[in-house]
C-alpha cells in the first residue's frame, strides 16, 4: 500500500515539474517574442498612431500648431472632434496630387534604372570566382561607409556647371557652354539610382546566387540558346530578388527628401519636399500628417500584394 502511494507521489512530482517546465518555456517564448514586438510598438505603432490622429486635428497658430482631437469637458464628457478637412484639402489643391504623381513617377524610373543596372551587375558577380565575388560585393557595399549626405553633395559638384561632367562634354566639343544638369529631374533620378543601387543589387545577388547552374545546362541541352535560356530560366527564378530589390528602391524612393532637395530644381515636386514645406515652413502639421497617411496607404496596398505573391513563390521553392 505504502509502495503504491510512493509511486503515486513520484508521478505527481513528475507532473508538477513538467508543469513548471511548461511555464518556463512559455515565459521564455514570450520574452523572446516581446523584444521585436516591443520595438515595433515603441518605434512604429505609437508614432504611427500619433501621426494618424494628428491628421484628423485642426491646424492653429500656436504651439503646438494643432488642436487636440480629444477634450475633457468635465468629469463625464469627452469631446472628440475629427477634422477630415485636411484630407479634403489634399484633393482640392492640385499641388499635392501632382507631387504624388511626380514622386511615384520619379521613383518608378529610378527603380527601373536600378534594375537595369543592378541585374547585370548582380548576375556578373554570381558568375565570377569566389574571391572576385567577395571583392565585388565589398565594392557594392563600400559607399555605405561614407555619409549618404556627403555622397549626394559630391554629386552636386560632379553635375554642377563647373563640374567634371560639363568640362568633359565641353572639352570633347559636344557642347559649347555648360548645360544645366544639376537641379533637374534628371539629376534627381541619377541621384536616386546611385544611392539606391546597392539595395537592388544585394537582394538580386542573393536570389541569383541560389539558382542551380545545371538548370541552365538543362535548358541548353533541350535546345535553348544561352540568351533565351537566361530569360526563360534565370529571370523567372530570380523573381524574388527582382521584387525585393524593387520594393527596397521604390518605397524609400517615393518619400525621398534629401536627393530632390539637393539635386532637384526648385520646381521639382517630390512629396518629401512638399511634406517638409508643410511641416517646417507652413507649420501645418495636420495637413502634413494627412499627406503621410495618404502616401502610406498608396504604398501599403501594393506592398501587401507583393508580399502575398512572394510567399506563394516561397512555397514553391521550399
Amino acid at each position, binding site marked *: 500500500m505504502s509502495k503504491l502511494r510512493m509511486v503515486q507521489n513520484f508521478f505527481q512530482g513528475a507532473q508538477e515539474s513538467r508543469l513548471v517546465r511548461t511555464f518556463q518555456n512559455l515565459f521564455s517564448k514570450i520574452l523572446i517574442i516581446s523584444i521585436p514586438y516591443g520595438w515595433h510598438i515603441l518605434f512604429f505603432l505609437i508614432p504611427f498612431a500619433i501621426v494618424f490622429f494628428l491628421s484628423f486635428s485642426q491646424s492653429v497658430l500656436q504651439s503646438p500648431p494643432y488642436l487636440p482631437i480629444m477634450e475633457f469637458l468635465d468629469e463625464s464628457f469627452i469631446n472628440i472632434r475629427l477634422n477630415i478637412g485636411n484630407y479634403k484639402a489634399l484633393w482640392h489643391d492640385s499641388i499635392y496630387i501632382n507631387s504624388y504623381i511626380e514622386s511615384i513617377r520619379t521613383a518608378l524610373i529610378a527603380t527601373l534604372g536600378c534594375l537595369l543596372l543592378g541585374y547585370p551587375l548582380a548576375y556578373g558577380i554570381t558568375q565570377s570566382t569566389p574571391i572576385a565575388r567577395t571583392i565585388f560585393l565589398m565594392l557594392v557595399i563600400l559607399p555605405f561607409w561614407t555619409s549618404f549626405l556627403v555622397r549626394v553633395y559630391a554629386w552636386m559638384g560632379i553635375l554642377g556647371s563647373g563640374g567634371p561632367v560639363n568640362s568633359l562634354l565641353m572639352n570633347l566639343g559636344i557642347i559649347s557652354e555648360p548645360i544645366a544638369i544639376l537641379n533637374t529631374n534628371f539629376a534627381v533620378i541619377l541621384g536616386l539610382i546611385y544611392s539606391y543601387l546597392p539595395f537592388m543589387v544585394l537582394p538580386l545577388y542573393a536570389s541569383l546566387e541560389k539558382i542551380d547552374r545545371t538548370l541552365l*545546362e538543362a*535548358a*541548353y*541541352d533541350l*535546345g*535553348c540558346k*544561352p540568351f533565351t535560356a537566361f530569360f526563360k530560366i534565370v529571370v523567372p527564378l530570380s523573381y524574388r530578388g527582382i521584387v525585393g530589390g524593387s520594393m527596397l528602391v521604390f518605397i524609400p524612393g517615393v518619400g525621398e527628401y534629401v536627393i530632390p532637395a539637393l539635386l532637384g530644381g526648385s520646381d521639382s515636386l517630390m512629396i518629401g519636399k512638399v511634406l517638409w514645406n508643410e511641416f517646417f515652413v507652413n507649420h501645418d502639421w495636420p495637413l502634413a500628417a494627412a499627406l503621410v497617411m495618404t502616401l502610406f496607404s498608396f504604398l501599403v496596398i501594393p506592398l501587401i500584394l507583393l508580399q502575398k505573391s512572394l510567399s506563394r513563390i516561397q512555397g*514553391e*521553392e521550399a
Partner: protein
Amino acid sequence: MALADRPSSILEPWQDPKAIPYIEMENVSISYGGVMAVNNVSLSIYKGELFCLLGPSGCGKTTLLRILGGFEIPTSGRIYIDGVDYTKVPAYERPVNMMFQSYALFPHMSVEQNVAFGLKQEGMAKNLIRDKVQEILQLVQMSSYAARKPHQLSGGQRQRVALARCLVKKPKLVLLDEPLGALDKQLREQTQFELVNIQEKLGVTFVMVTHDQEEAMTMATRIGVMEEGRLRQVGKPTEVYEYPNSLYVADFIGEMNIFEGIVTEEESDHILVHCEQAACDIYISHAASAPVGASVSVAIRPEKVRITTEEMPLGRNVTKGIVREIAYLGDVSIYHVILPSGQKVLASMSNQFRLAERPINWDDEVWISWRPESGVILTA
C-alpha cells in the same frame, strides 16, 4: 545478375566488323590545368545500346558524358554521332539529351511545361506538343501528375519526369548521369528494369554513368570501366566480370581472390601456374598469352571457390586452410579462409541450408578447390 534474356533483336554489333558505330569517340582528351580528366579515350557505341561508363568518383566518367552532351569541349580528339562530326557543336544544337544527376527540373514550371520545354524550343505546333507530352508522360506513368510542380513530387517521380523530358525530343543519344543515384535501394532496383524496358521500347541509344557496379551489370549491354581518365576495359557485363583484363578491373567489379605465381606450362588449351601462396599448382583450361617463367596473377571469383570440410586429395586447384571468419549476408555466406602461407581466400556459398544446420564453422579445417575454367590470368 545481368538481364541475360535481352530480345534477340539486339545482337552484338560490336562483334561485327562491318557494323557502323552510331557514336564514335576518337582519341578524346580533356585537360584542366594540366590534369587529364579524360585521357585519350576511343570508343564506339552502336545504335540501341545501353552503354555504361563505370568507375570510382573522379575517374572522368561524368566528364566524358559531358563531352558527349556538348558541355565540355575536348582538348583534342573528335566525336561523331551518326556520322556527323559534333566535336565543337554546342549542347543546344546536338541531337543529344541528358538526364542530370540532380534531374535539373525547372522549379518554376509544371511537369507538363518541363517536358514541353524542349519541343517548344524547336518551334513545334502547340497541339502537336500537347500530344507528344501526353504520350511520353503516359510511357513513364506520370500522366496524372502533369499539372504538378517539381517540388510536389517524390524523388522517383522527379526521375521519371526528367527521363520524359529527355526522351520527348526523340534524341539520337540519351545521356544519363547517375540516373538512379538519388533513389532508395528498393525503388532503384525496380526502376532499373523500367529504364531498360523504356530504352528497348523506344530503341534509343543510352550512355549511362554510374559508380554502382551492380547497376551497370544489370542494365548495360556493354560496360566501359574507367580509371583516372582512361578506359581500362570495354565489354559485356559477363565479359568484364568473368574475364577482367587487369587487376584494376578485377578488383573494381566484385570480389576477387588474387594469387601470384609463375607460369610453368603453356599450351594452346591450358596453362599451368605454380603458386607458392596457394601451395598448389593452378590449372587453367583456357589459353592466355603468358610465356613460361613469367610471373602472373591469377584471379578467381569467391563464388567459384568450392569449400568443404570433407577431406580431398591435395593437388592441382585444391588446397586447404582454416576458416577464420564467416560473413553471413542472408542469401550467401562468405568464408574467409587462411591458407598455411598466410594468404586469405574468400569463398562464397549460397545458404541453401538454415543457419543452424551450417556445416562449416569457425576454425574448421576446410578444403577449397575450383574448376579448371575458373581462373583468369592477369598480366597487367
